[in-house]
């Protein structure tokens, strides 16, 4: 059996994605072969060599290239991500992964509604690319992407290049639809047949809660990818739990049963 042990990866690139310099894309060369990586998988990264920060930080994989190089996208929000921001080409990073489960691939007849909120973009951009590589019809992948402002919408060119319907939206109206991503989706729902539509979401928890409500109200199935502070990332510390919606008084581990959950599985 292939062991998913920590491995030291070489930094290929660590580039800014916006002019303000708070979003970065880090590309790493995996030190050894891992199990196959799919959209939704995450890696657990030791952001510094010492004891501060103490825990690793979890990041969804944003893509894998043919040379087995993975990328993650992050925003500098605290100590761990600030350390990542300092990484230079040829530096090394200690990672564990791929970990967790991944998005399930819908039937080609299904219309796929992708809902990416803020830094929830990476696994869904990877998922859209993956579906296209699996010959899912491009016009059946609707890509909704919401952020606070235009500056928070990353990789717009790359998304446009995919040739799929793209629905950007911003809270302040500075780009695309003016309003919440769930409002943008709702405005387009009448065009879709609910039993032939699946929703896939990742983003801040309030957005996912609204998305899950919307999906359940319209009897849409689908999946959401959750985020939580993860001490271990491998299912044993029981720290990154969320209450189950379908089974009262019990929890799921985001890192182990997830991070991808079916609509209606987790209470948000």
């Amino acid at each position, binding site marked *: *059996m292939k*062991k998913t042990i920590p491995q030291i990866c070489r930094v290929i690139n660590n580039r800014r994605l916006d002019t303000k310099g708070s979003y970065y894309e880090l590309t790493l060369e995996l030190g050894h072969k891992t199990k196959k990586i799919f959209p939704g998988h995450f890696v657990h990264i030791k952001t510094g060599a010492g004891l501060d920060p103490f825990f690793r930080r979890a990041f969804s994989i944003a893509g894998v290239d043919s040379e087995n190089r993975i990328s993650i996208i992050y925003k500098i929000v605290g100590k761990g991500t600030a350390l990542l921001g300092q990484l230079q080409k040829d530096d090394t990073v200690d990672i564990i992964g791929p970990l967790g489960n991944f998005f399930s691939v819908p039937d080609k007849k299904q219309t796929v509604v992708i809902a990416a909120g803020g830094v929830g973009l990476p696994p869904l951009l990877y998922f859209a690319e993956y579906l296209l590589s699996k010959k899912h019809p491009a016009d059946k992948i609707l890509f909704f992407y919401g952020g606070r402002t235009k500056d928070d919408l990353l990789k717009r060119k790359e998304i446009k290049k995919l040739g799929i319907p793209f629905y950007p939206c911003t809270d302040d109206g500075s780009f695309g639809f003016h309003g919440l991503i769930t409002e943008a989706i709702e405005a387009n729902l009448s065009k879709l047949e609910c039993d032939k539509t699946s929703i896939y979401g990742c983003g801040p928890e309030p957005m996912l809660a609204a998305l899950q409500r919307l999906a359940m109200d319209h009897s849409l199935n689908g999946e959401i990818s959750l985020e*939580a502070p993860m001490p*271990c990332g*491998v299912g*044993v*510390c*029981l720290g990154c739990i969320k209450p189950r919606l379908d089974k009262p008084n019990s929890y799921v581990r985001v890192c182990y049963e997830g991070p991808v959950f079916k609509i209606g599985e987790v209470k948000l």
Partner: protein
Amino acid sequence: MKPNLEIEIAGVRFKNPVTVASGTFGYAEEFEHLIDLDALGGIVTKSITRKERPGHPPPRTHETSAGMLNAIGLANVGIERFIDEKIPFLKKLKTVIIVNVAGSSLDEYVEVCRMLEKAGGFDMIELNVSCPNVDRGGMEFGTDPDAMIKVIAAVRDVTTRPVIAKLSPNVTSIATIAKAAQQGGAAAVSLINTLVGMAVDIETRKPCLTNGTGGLSGPAIKPVAIAMVHKVYKEINIPIIGIGGISDWRDAVEFHLVGALGLQVGTANFIQPDATMHIIKGLQTYLSGHNIESINDLVGKVRM
């Protein structure tokens, strides 16, 4: 010559002293794809109670300086599911299996141990009489010498397996409790469990853990653990299993020197899931480098 890492506790042979602490290794199956489980000296399971427990609501872990706070609240599958679903996997492993048992009453400890004895498939019992995170989680047995004697004696009546008492550092005199464990018939003591701690969010002014307080673990508590193992070693005749912030082989050597025969690696499993493998290799190298034949020759050899 390859140094000998084997140790023996109450007739149970460990291929090396490196085991994993309860609550940091799940039921071991979670680590199957991460490390070679058979290379471990032993595995201590998550605490098992009579009934399944979901544990406390989140947040129940919190990052601190060189460590963490947790108040999981003894979340576990309960003894019935443990026997049906977890023991079949554990008993296939070629390592010592230690089942950690928790309870909120004397009867619960006894009942869980009786059911385990009937099921078999493990080597030793570790009694969690020191969980700081539940109202009634055995802490009263771990802080009162008479209660300690009683619970160990009662459990010994229903099991043929050696019983280890896991001790709390949240007491006035850990040596007194350790002596009680020995008097009650414990085959060994393991120490230390976590130290009670607390953290507050300065914006919301609320505790960082839903439970309020939690147990502090990790490298931050190692000096406390070293001092307590050293103290207990002078007071009892049964073996000590050292726990508390062990992250690399140097920590392991330090614990042996103050009197630990066995070791439990805990929080380090979260950060470096293969920490145990590195510790085993490091101990071998240390012994070879110092011409020490057996790990047993290192135990208690601190020079005061």
